[in-house]
């Protein structure tokens, strides 16, 4: 999340909103957000329902949930998904921004 925050403005420029979903409860989310002063929406999902729905992987050997990122366009279509194979397996911000730019350009073409 610290990585995403560095380029937050670039994501905003690409008309994107960032929703962070995690297994912690409301209290843990709130205190983390207050400490880290994050600009994203934080969605606690302690019953894991949405985490499962989107197929976030749990690696029992590595003792935790693997990170995942999904980009959904304005029509509600999933356009990109990255399922991390390790805790540090997170796509670069540049890669995510480039995908958003492509999606937006495509939308422009459809509109014009």
């Amino acid at each position, binding site marked *: 999340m610290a990585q995403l925050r560095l380029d937050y403005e670039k994501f905003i420029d690409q008309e994107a909103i960032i929703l962070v*979903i995690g297994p912690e409860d409301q209290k843990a989310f709130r205190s983390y957000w207050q400490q880290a002063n994050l600009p994203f929406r934080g969605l606690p999902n302690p019953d894991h329902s949405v985490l499962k729905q989107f197929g976030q992987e749990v690696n029992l050997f590595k003792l935790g*949930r693997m990170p995942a990122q999904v980009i959904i366009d*304005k029509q509600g279509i999933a356009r990109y998904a990255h399922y991390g194979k390790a805790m540090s397996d997170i796509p670069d911000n540049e890669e995510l921004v480039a995908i*958003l730019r492509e999606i937006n350009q495509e939308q422009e073409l459809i509109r014009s």
Partner: protein
Amino acid sequence: MSNAIQINQPAPDFTLPDFEGKLVHLTDFRGKKNVILVFNRGFT
């Protein structure tokens, strides 16, 4: 990765309260914003 979502297919809809209790529906952003969902690996 049995439940991995399908690319270029509609994303599964969901509704969750944010940590302030405000309900967020994925469909709230339809026609307005691209959405980046970040599945957290934990606050560590």
